[in-house]
């Protein structure tokens, strides 16, 4: 039977991400948050399930839609929220912002404004591990759209050739901005792309946190024990538009409804309650607790100072 601590951890992180993203949406609407933010709501099971399969000394690389990964990789809600608002107390001192959340000390090698931009880095981190002979692994996240970028293929080839401990996770939410996988990729089953590199691949239900966790765990174990890289496609969905102004003309309300019904959070809660691992009350409590934490983080961020003008020129060279 499932461990209760784990159930709480998974559920709590998913709730944190969802509420964090809902809060950002609210702050964007109020112009408290400026600029864009690509929100992770709907996709929580992927980041949470996958990263729960890691040790704390393992690495991840993230994407332009990186809040979820950052939270799941032990991110501090306050420092993340402050970063997104561009405050001095942000995890990157307000210099990175939503698109560049990173915390190398915690193994998060960073979100990335460039689609596909971190796939090479992840591979390099894998090389580093292999050369240092530690038994860490790297989880490399990217979207379906990113699998059309040259560096994706170049990197998978090298990882497979050199048998690097990298798990490549494609978060297939069926669209790259407005362009569906149908209109962007010659193959609909994205796991086929690994065939070009003889890399083991599989597709997993990205709305099911346990399924993701299980699949990633297996691949992590392989990578840790020197069996090389793998490619996992997690089918999922993003609930919000690509950006705030996106009217979502490229997809139907029915399709959205279909995926809303598979919402990873209530589904996992329900399952845990059914299995007697958590009570409804505990779930409600957890939700409240998370709400509290998000409110605190928001307050913290809003009350935080802006960077000093001098900081424009600091942190450039080591």
């Amino acid at each position, binding site marked *: 039977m499932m461990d209760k601590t784990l159930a709480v951890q998974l559920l709590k992180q998913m709730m944190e991400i969802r509420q964090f993203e809902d809060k950002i949406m609210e702050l964007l609407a109020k112009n408290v948050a400026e*600029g864009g933010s690509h929100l992770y709501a709907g996709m929580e099971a992927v980041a949470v399930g996958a990263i729960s399969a890691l040790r704390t000394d393992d690495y991840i690389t993230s994407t332009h839609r990186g809040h979820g990964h950052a939270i799941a990789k032990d991110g501090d809600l306050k420092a993340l929220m402050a970063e997104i608002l*561009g405050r001095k107390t942000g995890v990157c001192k307000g210099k990175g*912002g939503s698109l560049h959340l990173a915390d190398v000390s915690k193994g998060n090698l960073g979100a990335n404004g460039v*689609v596909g931009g971190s796939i090479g880095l992840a591979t390099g981190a894998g090389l580093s591990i292999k050369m240092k002979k530690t038994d860490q692994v790297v989880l490399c996240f990217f979207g379906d759209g990113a699998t059309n970028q*040259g560096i994706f293929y170049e990197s998978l080839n090298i990882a497979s050739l050199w048998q690097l401990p990298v798990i490549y996770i494609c978060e297939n939410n069926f669209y790259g901005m407005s362009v569906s996988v149908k*209109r962007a990729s010659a193959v609909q089953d994205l796991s086929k792309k690994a065939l070009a590199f003889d890399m083991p691949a599989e597709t997993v239900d990205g709305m099911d946190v346990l399924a993701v966790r299980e699949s990633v765990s297996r691949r992590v174990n392989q990578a840790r024990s020197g069996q090389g890289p793998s490619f996992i496609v997690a089918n999922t969905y993003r609930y919000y538009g690509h950006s705030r102004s996106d009217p979502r003309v490229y997809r139907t309300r029915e399709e959205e409804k279909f995926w809303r019904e598979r919402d990873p959070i209530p589904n996992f809660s329900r399952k845990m309650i059914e299995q007697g691992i958590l009570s409804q009350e505990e779930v409600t409590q957890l939700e409240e607790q998370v709400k509290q934490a998000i409110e605190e983080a928001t307050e913290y961020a809003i009350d935080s100072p*802006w960077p000093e003008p001098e*900081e*424009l020129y600091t942190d450039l060279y080591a």
Partner: protein
Amino acid sequence: MREITYRQALNEALDEELTRDRAVFVAGEDVAIYGGAYGVTADLWKKYGDDRVKDTPISESAIVGLGIGAALTGLRPVVEIMYIDFIPLALEQINNQAAKIRYMFGGKCKVPLTIRTEGGAGRTLGAHHSQSLEAWLIHIPGLKVVMPATPADAKGLLKSSIRDDNPVVFIEHKMLYNTKGPVPEEEYLVPIGRAEVKKPGRDVSIITYSRMLLFSLEAAVSLEKEGISAEVVDLRTLLPMDVESIVKTVKKTHRVVIVEEDCKTGGTGAEIGMTIMENAFDELDAPIKRVAGADVPMPKSPVLERLAIPDPERICQAVKEVLR
């Protein structure tokens, strides 16, 4: 004259050229159904269909490659790279192929390709969505580089770019899309390679382009109140640069401030400055000043982002310094 936005002006240019010439087509990420990340290609897909307005995969290098191959074989592609920050992904194709093919092949072919892209800061999008990389592009012989600041120039120059038989990189600015200005209803072209004095003046020349034109004009208005008459020159095209217009304004005012949004070191302003050095040194009564972007990646924080690029106040200061 009617006033429309920079965005609409660009949209009209594309629409008119698509109608005028069957060889023209538009391709890029999210240009079709979505109408472009900043709405420039809105409704064109509905009007012209998948065949002439094409969504592409996220494959910047191949997008430009496609455009070159199509241009080389008789079409007039207009491809879009969503942010200039992603131009480096396609730079091998732009630099080594698009710009060089004609010369390398002894002038026996042409590459009538337009690459539309968009740059600049102002929306607190951070270091990967706020760059100004035009300086790289002016260092590529064989290219033309166009950077309009007003809706009228945007329309007239985009039409000229599409009709040009050479590869043109056409750089829009994200903070200009919503700006409005007078744009003729009738068809017109703005020639590539000609600067324009956007405000005449006597005491100092402010030489600039793209969004910094707006800040420079603002500065000029403030300066006027203090009795300083600044001439504001909008380069509009960066390659080929309009040396004649630059020399003319220097001969008139003898003092120059260059205003550019890109990072100062190795930026476009350096070339503008040296052009003056080489063509009008004896006309200068004071050293040229550059007001430029800070030499840092663009920080996210709005307070730092504002400091990282020129503003009207700093332009005024620089003007006063060159007048001292």
